[in-house]
C-alpha cells in the first residue's frame, strides 16, 4: 500500500519562499553539502570578482590618478593627494592591520561596536518578540502600539541621534538606545507575521480539540513563527551594526567606536586607517549577517519548506 513509486526524499512541490537575495547569499555562505572541491568551486566566482575590484582599484590609483594629479604640482604633493583619495590596498593593509598601534586602536573601536550591536540586538529581540506576541494575542494591543512601531521606524535615525545625546549623554547607554531603535522594527513585523503564518487548517485542529490559548501558542503559533522571526533577526543584525556605527559617528565623543574613528581619520587625513575602519565595520556587518543566516538554517532547514537543505 505504500506509494513507493515516489522517492521518499523527493520534497513535495511547494514553492520556495526565501527572499531571493538571501537565497543567493546562502549559496555562497552555506554551500549545501558536496565535497570540498565542489565547495571551493563555489568560491571561484566571488573570488574572481574580488580580484577584479582590487585590480581596478590599483589601476585607478596608479595608472590614472597619479599622472592626472602630477600635472600641475610637485611629484610629492601629487603622491600625497593620490594617497588621500585612493590609497593602495597594500598601504591600507600595512598601515591599518600590520601596524600594532593602529591595529589596537581599530580593534578597540571594533570591540565597542561589537558590544553595542550585541546588547542592542538582544534588547531589541526581547522587546520585539514580547511586543509581537502581545499583538498576536490581542487585537487591541496591535491597534494601540503598531502605529508607533511604524513611527519609530520612519523617524530618520539621524534626526533622533542629537536628541538622544541631549537626553542621555554620549555614553554606552545612549548609543545602545540608537541600536535598539534602529533594529527593533524588523523583529516586530517579522515575528508578528510568523506568529500569524500557521495555516487555517492547523488552527481548526486545535479548535476542534479544544486546545487552550496557551497550548495553541506554544505548540502552533510560536514554532510556526521561527522562520520569519529568524529572517527578522538577520535583517536587524545588519541594522544593529549600522546603528552602533552611526551612533559613534554622530555622538563624536566619549569612548571611540569605529564611527568615531572614521571621523577622526577623516579630520586627521589618515586615509589608510580610514579604509581600515571601513573594512572592519563592513566585516562586522557581514559577520552578523552570516551568523544569523547560519542560525536560521540550523533551526529550520530540516523542516521548513522554503529553506534550503
Amino acid at each position, binding site marked *: 500500500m505504500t*506509494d513507493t513509486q515516489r522517492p521518499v526524499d523527493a520534497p513535495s512541490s511547494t514553492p520556495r519562499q526565501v527572499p531571493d537575495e538571501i537565497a543567493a547569499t546562502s549559496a555562497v555562505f552555506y554551500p549545501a553539502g558536496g565535497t570540498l572541491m565542489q565547495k571551493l568551486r563555489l568560491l571561484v566566482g566571488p573570488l574572481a570578482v574580488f580580484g577584479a575590484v582590487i585590480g581596478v582599484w590599483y589601476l585607478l590609483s596608479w595608472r590614472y590618478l597619479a599622472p592626472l594629479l602630477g600635472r600641475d604640482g610637485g611629484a610629492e604633493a601629487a603622491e600625497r593627494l593620490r594617497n588621500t583619495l585612493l590609497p593602495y590596498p597594500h598601504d591600507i593593509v600595512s598601515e591599518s592591520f600590520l601596524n600594532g598601534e593602529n591595529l589596537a586602536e581599530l580593534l578597540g573601536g571594533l570591540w565597542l561596536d561589537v558590544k553595542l550591536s550585541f546588547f542592542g540586538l538582544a534588547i531589541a529581540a526581547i522587546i520585539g518578540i514580547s511586543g509581537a506576541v502581545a499583538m498576536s494575542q490581542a487585537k487591541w494591543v496591535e491597534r494601540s502600539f503598531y502605529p508607533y512601531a511604524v513611527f519609530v521606524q520612519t523617524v530618520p535615525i539621524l534626526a533622533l541621534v542629537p536628541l538622544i545625546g541631549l537626553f542621555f549623554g554620549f555614553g554606552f547607554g545612549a548609543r545602545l538606545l540608537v541600536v535598539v531603535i534602529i533594529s527593533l522594527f524588523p523583529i516586530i513585523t517579522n515575528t508578528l507575521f510568523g506568529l500569524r503564518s500557521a495555516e487555517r487548517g492547523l488552527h481548526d485542529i486545535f479548535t476542534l480539540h479544544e486546545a487552550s490559548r496557551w497550548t495553541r501558542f506554544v505548540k502552533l503559533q510560536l514554532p510556526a513563527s521561527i522562520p520569519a522571526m529568524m529572517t527578522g533577526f538577520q535583517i536587524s543584525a545588519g541594522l544593529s551594526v549600522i546603528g552602533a556605527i552611526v551612533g559613534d559617528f554622530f555622538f563624536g565623543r566619549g569612548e571611540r567606536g569605529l564611527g568615531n574613528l572614521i571621523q577622526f581619520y577623516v579630520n586627521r587625513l589618515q586615509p589608510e586607517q580610514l579604509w581600515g575602519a571601513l573594512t572592519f565595520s563592513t566585516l562586522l556587518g557581514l559577520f552578523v549577517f552570516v551568523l544569523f543566516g547560519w542560525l536560521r538554517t540550523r533551526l529550520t532547514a530540516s523542516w521548513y519548506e522554503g529553506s534550503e537543505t
Partner: protein
Amino acid sequence: MSTADGSTLVFDSVGMVYPDGTEALKDISFQVSPGEFVTVVGPSGCGKSTLLKLASGLLDHTSGSVNIDRDRIGYVFQDATLLPWRTVQKNVELLAELHDIDAAERTRRAREAIDLVDLSGFEKHHPKRLSGGMKMRVSLARSLTLDPSVFLFDEPFGALDEITRERLNDEVLELFALKRFAGLFITHSIYEAIYMSTRVLVMSARPGRVIAEFEVPYGFPRDEHFRFSPEFAELSGEVSEALRMSYA
C-alpha cells in the same frame, strides 16, 4: 456513546445561515450509524464542507439539531494539515497530546496508527520529505490515535493523482472494515463516492439540500472488479443524472 436510535451522527432538519444572510444549508436530515460509510457529492459551493464543519462543531448551525459523539471525532481535511516542524511520529501524537494522554500511551497509540497506515520506518521524517499521499496517510494516522467513532473526510484525496487516490481509498476502506466507525466522506468524484460508500447523498446547489439518496448494496472488500462492473456503471449513471439535476 451513540444516540438513542443507535446512530453515531444525526442531522435533524439542520439549516445554516451565515451572519451576512447567505443561506448555506437548508433542512438537512440524515444519519450515519457505526459500520455505515456515507459519501456526499454535490456542485462546488453547495456547502459540502460546511456540512462537516457543522458536524464537528467548528461552525454552529442556525436551525435544527446535530447529534454526535464529540469526544471521538476523526477529521481529515483537504490538506494533510501537518505541523511541518514535527516528525511523523510527533505529528501523529498531536491529538493524544491535546487530550492530555500520557506520553507512554500516546507513543504506543502513534506507533500502532503509523503501522496501520503503512508508514513504519518513516517515524523520524519531517513532512517536507514526504509525498502528498504519504502526508495524507500521516493525517489519517493522527485521527486514528483517538479511535474515532465517527470519521469525517473533507475531500481528502482531491489533490492527489488518480493512482495514489485509489490506493488511499482502499486503505480507508480497510480501516473502515477494521474499526467499523461511522464514516462521512465529502468528494466531488462520483466514482469515488460510489466506490467508498454504503450510501451516497447528492446535494443541490446553494442553499444545499439533500436531493437524492442512493444505497450502494455491495459488500466489502471492494476491488477493481467492482469499479469496472456493470452495476457500478449503472449506479454512476444514476448519481450523475441526479447531480446534473442539482445544477438546474
